[in-house]
């Protein structure tokens, strides 16, 4: 098995041949929830089949059933047309179905090759290091997965570790690979490399099941899309014959408005002004002489590839970092280097990129998280915070067991609603924030939650707040900003109005090519 299983041996479907895997009327329940409610799905040879759905829609459960981790309570699996019951993932692998989990299952102190052959029962007692390394190198090369078989996994980047998992699954003889949210841990460049690998695998006749909640990447990579909602299949379409809007509707169950929104009233006076802002630490300049101005009633979008100084820029403006040089004024008050509390006092609100862990303390209750960025007297008064928490939960339909639940128990979308609402201090007409810095506010969120967050930002703009939107998602910046600047290696390099902006010019600027 494994190394000897050349990819050319697998043929694509002939017309009329049974699908490689066919799941029929699968039912899997967990206490209080039907995770899979009579689910049907057909996986064909040589296709990229996306399982699309919001968090909790049941797609990971379905994948677990397909690979043998769960035995369904009802329904059946047909593999190459033959009814089969899979009792364990090992069972699944024996039939050529393997899963690459979102959280890797690798041993840091083993080499790549050792991790790959781990659990291979055909290995002899004495490990033939050279042979296994050759086998691993061969698979890696065939599928365009550059890896050094002798490297220790602990020294690898996240993207490289994912390649190890994929090679391991291929080595174990998988013809059908289930990838669970594979891009969630990757940089855009790593994601592109992964997509190329996926195409190589399907070209060789293997099937890739791509589990995701991101519309854009599903449309980019998939041949077929099965959409799930609340444990049911709500759509099964060819990727080429569908649109973002249709997929979003099937995912959320209603029309989702992800169309672009702009300011309807001209922007007024400048509220946030940044001049010559620079951060140099350990000889590395991550923010380099940045000048910008955000006016009341507009959203300034900062586009750029992750790691070009976005987080540092946001932290500097919010007072979390002290700049090496430069000035920051929030509605006329100089706040540079005076700390987060001074910036807040001047009217600045900050939604950091890391929402659960930085913006919200996960172990604390929602009520206590309301207090996190409020001025507090010596004696703590939780009554106002409790009222505010209850209000936010009600108005934004936050799914939680109550205001005393730990913030970390909320899903990403619900946590973000709580965080943004707290930062905008939107308690019944009482607004203290006048400038909002929002970093990657919709990263990792469901479509429905993205719509809500965009709606909140748009509403804040309409009320006259000045919003600095720092996002690695170019679509997002194009959709809701009024003006766009590109951050490249800590410098602002390209400015354009968002309406009618050239995607190509922005893309080039993001890559560091001067337009």
């Amino acid at each position, binding site marked *: 098995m494994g190394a000897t299983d050349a990819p050319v041996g697998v043929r694509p479907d002939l017309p009329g041949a049974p699908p490689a895997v066919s799941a029929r009327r699968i039912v899997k329940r967990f206490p209080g929830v039907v995770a899979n409610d009579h689910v049907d799905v057909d996986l064909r040879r040589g296709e990229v089949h996306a399982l699309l759905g919001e968090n909790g829609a049941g797609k990971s459960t379905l994948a677990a059933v397909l690979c043998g981790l769960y035995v369904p309570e009802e329904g059946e699996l047909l593999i190459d047309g033959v009814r089969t019951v*899979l*009792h*364990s993932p*090992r*069972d699944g692998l*024996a039939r050529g179905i393997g899963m690459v989990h979102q959280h890797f299952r690798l041993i840091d102190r083993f080499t790549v090759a050792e991790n790959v052959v781990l659990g291979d029962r055909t290995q002899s007692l004495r490990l033939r290091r050279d042979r296994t390394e050759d086998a691993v190198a061969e698979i890696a090369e065939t599928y365009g997965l550059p890896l050094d078989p002798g490297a220790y996994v602990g020294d690898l980047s996240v993207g490289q570790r994912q390649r190890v998992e994929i090679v391991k699954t291929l080595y174990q003889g998988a013809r059908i690979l289930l990838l669970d949210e594979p891009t969630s841990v990757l940089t855009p460049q790593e994601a592109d490399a992964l997509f190329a690998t996926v195409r190589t695998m399907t070209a060789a006749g293997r099937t890739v099941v791509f589990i995701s909640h991101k519309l854009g990447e599903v449309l980019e990579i998939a041949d077929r899309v099965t959409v799930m909602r609340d444990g049911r299949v709500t759509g099964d379409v060819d990727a080429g014959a569908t649109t973002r809007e249709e997929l979003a509707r099937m995912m959320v169950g209603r029309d989702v408005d992800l169309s672009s929104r702009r300011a309807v009233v001209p922007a007024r006076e400048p509220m946030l002004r940044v001049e010559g802002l620079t951060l140099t630490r350990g000889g590395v300049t991550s923010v380099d002489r940045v000048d910008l101005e955000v006016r009341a009633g507009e959203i300034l979008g900062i586009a750029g590839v992750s790691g070009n100084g976005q987080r540092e820029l946001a932290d500097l403006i*919010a*007072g*979390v970092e002290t700049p090496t040089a430069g000035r920051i004024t929030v509605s006329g008050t100089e706040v540079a280097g005076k*700390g*987060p*509390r001074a910036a*807040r006092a001047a009217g600045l609100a*900050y939604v*950091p990129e*890391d929402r659960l*862990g*930085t*913006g*919200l*303390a*996960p*172990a*604390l209750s929602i009520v*206590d998280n309301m*207090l*996190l*960025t409020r001025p*507090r*007297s*010596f*004696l*703590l008064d939780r009554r106002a915070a409790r009222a505010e928490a209850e209000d936010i939960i009600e108005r934004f339909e936050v799914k939680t067991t109550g205001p005393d639940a730990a913030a970390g128990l909320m899903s990403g979308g619900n946590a973000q609603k709580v965080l943004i609402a707290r930062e905008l201090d939107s308690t019944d007409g009482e607004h203290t924030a006048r400038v909002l810095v929002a970093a990657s506010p919709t990263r990792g969120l469901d479509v429905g939650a993205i719509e809500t967050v965009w709606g909140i930002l748009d509403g804040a703009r309409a009320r006259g707040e000045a919003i600095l939107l720092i996002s690695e998602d170019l679509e997002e910046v194009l959709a809701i900003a009024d003006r766009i600047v590109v951050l490249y290696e800590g410098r602002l390099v390209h400015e354009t109005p968002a309406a009618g902006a050239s995607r190509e010019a922005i893309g080039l600027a993001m890559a560091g090519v001067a337009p």
Partner: protein
Amino acid sequence: MILGSYEVLLEQRTDVRRSSAFIVPIASILGALVIAGVFLWLTGRPALSVYARLVRDGYGSWYSISDTLGQATPLILTGLAAAFAFRMNLYNIGGEGQLYAGAIGASWAGLAIAPHVSGPIAVVVVLLAGMLGGVLWIVIPAIARAFLNTSEIVTTLLFNYVALFLMQYLIFGSSSFWRDPDSKNFPQGKPLPDVAHFPTLHFPRDIAGLDFPSGVTSIHLGFGVAILAIIGTWFLQQRTSFGFDMKVVGSSERAARYAGIPIRRTVIAVLLISGGLAGLAGAGEVGGRAYALDPNGLVLGLGYTGIVVAALSRYNPFAVGLVAVLLAGLRTGADALQGATGPLRVPVAIAFMLEGAILLAALGGEVFRRNRLVVRRIREAPA
């Protein structure tokens, strides 16, 4: 783990019930009694009678209750010292050394200042000096932790030995201010003047009744201080902005930085308060019990036992009080058992063994509180 055709594993509970916060400690104590019972049985002692006697001698009379509360006093304070810092993930295990430093400070004040001031002030000065001693003993670990991120576990532990040897040096190794010049052959601490002795609770003789003829209890001012410290630390943690900052820094330092909470200041303040609490325990031992700085008279290990108290009470100040009284009762009872005759004569070590067994059972119980044991039948794939 795989046993035959069954797979045994721990699965994290998604719903940790509140009631389990009470059930687990009680089950731990019962489990520990069973474990210790096996040892008692093996050494030919009737376990149930020993336990009955232990309970009677630990909690069964006014006299034993008074003794138990006296023994509980330092444990409450060292328990609070540990719990207060542990809550913030600051592991001050130097309660032992801070207690000694508190004892040195308190006895110095009792000898040097108390004779020159009136009664109530003398006692307050002794208390404050003890607290200050504990605070000073943790200043270096606190600053090293806040600014250099040095592990406070290592530094506070090492300072324990320094404190122990310092105390021994002051009495045995030198003609120091603390040493009684009249004790030429067997060195002892200089006795504190009466004015520095903590007031002790007296029962009126007629109420004290049959089993308490003297009316004098072992409950001294330190017990009141310990009760105030329980309320004070609870109030600080739950009702003040400082307690809120502690909670944020302890649970998520990034969130604290984001919110502009002064992290270093909070870390230092928490450690100093923790040291001060342990120092108060030392003051209580000097001013309320030993009336001198005396390495032989001081009960060793009170600081370490405080860590056990903190762990068993899950860092809740009120639970610290209960657990301290419980463990103190075990010790009082065990002391009495040592003097018993016949098969009930049990070495005092039984109390320490029970403490250890309770702690282990509680730590094990905590694992099951957060996880559930799942036994699943596995079937090998038909190839």
